[in-house]
């Protein structure tokens, strides 16, 4: 399997596209800034959200039981899934029980994490993603590259080609308005004819047993209100204590994600409508383990706004697919190693540790600290990339022994001056898109000794 650096290299081949990707996500980040700065009490709002989430993690079992009891009282069937396989099996069993072989799905990163689409397709079930961005990437057999903007890696010309192939739109017409209208017509037909709708969950309220789903397109509602059967899949950590807490989180979510004051639709599902069946699947899939990792449990506070991705200099220039995991970017890089440390050992290294992610996080997750801590865990567990291990050992020797440090410095200055090709060659990834500055005549130590002596002479 290719690692983050190799996948990023592939993305970086198209320089113009990388620049566009970088600038577009930065634009989204600035929209977030504008919304946050305009909002009086933003920092107190973040702090409140953070503390509510801390409370949730410290009392998660009670809240889940409370949520379950209230949801059942409301007429919702509650299922528990230990892992992705159990979650997928529950969905399949419901389909089989009702003899349904197709469904509409609105955005759910959890079902991406569980690879539900592939599983259902193997079992002869047709899954239609209804979020526009997700529909686009689904046509192309690609995963979403961003949790809020699934098709942000594509240009309108790509979408035009894809829609021409799958929806018969005019060849070469890449007007977003025209393409969106084509998807609207195509999916309207689909909404009207599917019996089962699957949605994600943004917040589940323990106090009332209701769950809230946020969209801008209205696709979750179109699906759920027309289907006989509504399944909502949620990670355990989506639980919040009280209905009033929504006042905090709904103010943060969309502002952090896209700079909007709130999502277009924030729908509260408390009971199935007459004649409808409503199911909720509570999914663990590693979350209870992450809860036990003192350094990493805070990652479970995430409300999936994507702000950390939009601001990340590495994400913006490497693209979501380079993270080879359902949730990309900084938050994905601290969630993924919990699920499979070996497979995701490269991800905590895909960061400059600049801390911008932590600064924008609406629930104050210490993302860059966790990235740094995962690196240590990964090295301790023996999973660190070989080249990094050798380099780190050499570094530790030269830094701990002044004599070795002196000699290495001299050697490096010599090499850079007389034989730069030894370092600046294709084998050294540091030189991709970069060059070394000219090597100084002397070492800093020598300069310091001389200048300090001068200063002393002056005194």
């Amino acid at each position: 399997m290719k690692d983050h650096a190799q996948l990023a290299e592939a993305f970086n081949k198209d320089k113009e596209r990388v620049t566009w990707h970088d600038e577009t996500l930065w634009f989204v980040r600035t929209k977030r800034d504008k919304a946050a700065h305009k909002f009086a009490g933003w920092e107190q709002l973040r702090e409140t959200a953070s503390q509510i989430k801390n409370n949730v993690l410290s009392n998660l079992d009670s809240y889940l039981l409370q949520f379950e009891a209230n949801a059942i009282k409301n007429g919702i069937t509650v299922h528990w899934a230990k892992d992705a396989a159990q979650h997928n099996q529950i969905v399949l069993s419901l389909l089989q029980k009702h003899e349904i072989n197709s469904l509409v799905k609105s955005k759910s990163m959890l079902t991406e994490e569980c690879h539900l689409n592939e599983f259902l397709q193997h079992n002869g079930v047709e899954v239609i993603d209804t979020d526009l961005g997700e529909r686009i990437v689904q046509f192309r057999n690609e995963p979403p590259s961003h949790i809020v903007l699934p098709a942000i890696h594509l240009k309108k010309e790509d979408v035009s080609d894809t829609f021409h192939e799958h929806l018969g739109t005019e060849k070469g017409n890449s007007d977003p308005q025209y393409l969106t209208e084509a998807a609207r017509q195509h999916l309207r037909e689909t909404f009207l004819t599917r019996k089962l709708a699957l949605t994600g969950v943004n917040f589940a309220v323990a106090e009332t047993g209701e769950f809230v789903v946020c969209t801008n397109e209205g696709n979750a509602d179109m699906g759920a209100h027309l289907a006989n059967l509504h399944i909502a899949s949620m990670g355990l950590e989506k639980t919040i204590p009280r209905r009033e807490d929504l006042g905090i989180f709904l103010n943060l979510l969309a502002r952090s994600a896209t700079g909007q004051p709130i999502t277009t639709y924030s729908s509260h599902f408390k009971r199935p409508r007459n004649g409808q069946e409503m199911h909720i699947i509570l999914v663990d899939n590693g979350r209870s383990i992450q809860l036990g990792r003192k350094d990493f449990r805070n990652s479970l506070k995430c409300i999936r706004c994507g702000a950390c991705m939009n601001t990340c200099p590495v994400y913006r220039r490497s693209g979501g697919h380079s993270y080879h995991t359902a949730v990309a970017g900084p938050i994905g890089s601290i969630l993924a190693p919990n699920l499979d440390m070996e497979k995701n050992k490269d991800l905590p290294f895909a960061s400059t540790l600049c801390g911008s992610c932590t600064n924008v996080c609406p629930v104050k997750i210490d993302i860059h600290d966790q990235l740094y801590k995962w690196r240590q865990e990964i090295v301790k567990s023996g999973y660190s990339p070989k080249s990094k291990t050798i380099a780190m050992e050499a570094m530790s020797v030269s830094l701990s022994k002044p004599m070795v440090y002196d000699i290495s410095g001299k050697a490096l200055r010599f090499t850079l001056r007389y034989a730069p090709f030894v370092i600046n060659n294709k084998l050294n990834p540091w030189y991709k898109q970069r060059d070394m500055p000219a090597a100084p005549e002397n070492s800093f130590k020598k300069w310091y000794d001389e200048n300090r002596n001068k200063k002393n002479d002056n005194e």
Partner: protein
Amino acid sequence: MSSRNEILAAIAANKPDYQPLPVGLYTPENGYNIVSRFKENITLIGGAVHKINVISEIEQFLYSNFPSAKRIVTNNEALKNVATHLINTDLDKQIPHELENVDVTILDAPFGVAENGAIWITDESLHHRVLPFITQHLILIIKESSIIASLQDAYAKIGLTDYGYGTFISGPSKTADIEQSLVIGAHGSRSLDVFIIGQAS
């Protein structure tokens, strides 16, 4: 052991020490003109706001803006002359799919929130949950006096009221999934017009 009990046991074993819920850390901004803020936000998110004194002013708006609309539905009795269907009496037997050809839906809404430009609506007035989504165009009517400042106020007002379904609607449906270009009219309504009825009525 069932998955449920296994999960609960793992959480109980792994959860951190109890952390209390925060109290009074955040207070919403106040002291601004909430009606203007509400209008600003609705406009920002692609909706339009109209201030009126009497409901009948909406009739004229319909004639001018939707002259070819064939199916206009409402929950407001005062609009029964322009509407083709009253939701509670004419649509109660229909299945949601039959609303597919609704052109305009006009709904009385209980309140709006200034800081988000969001309007609350529950299935008490909707009857069919799908209505504000499946309709081509949506018109919401609220009293000026029912505009409140913040989501905090909104949830204080909602309290623990029972509803089967409730939603905050903030603008027409939209997407920017193609190159971040904003397109109004994704899967839900293509437009949102909000009529604010002044104090006079």
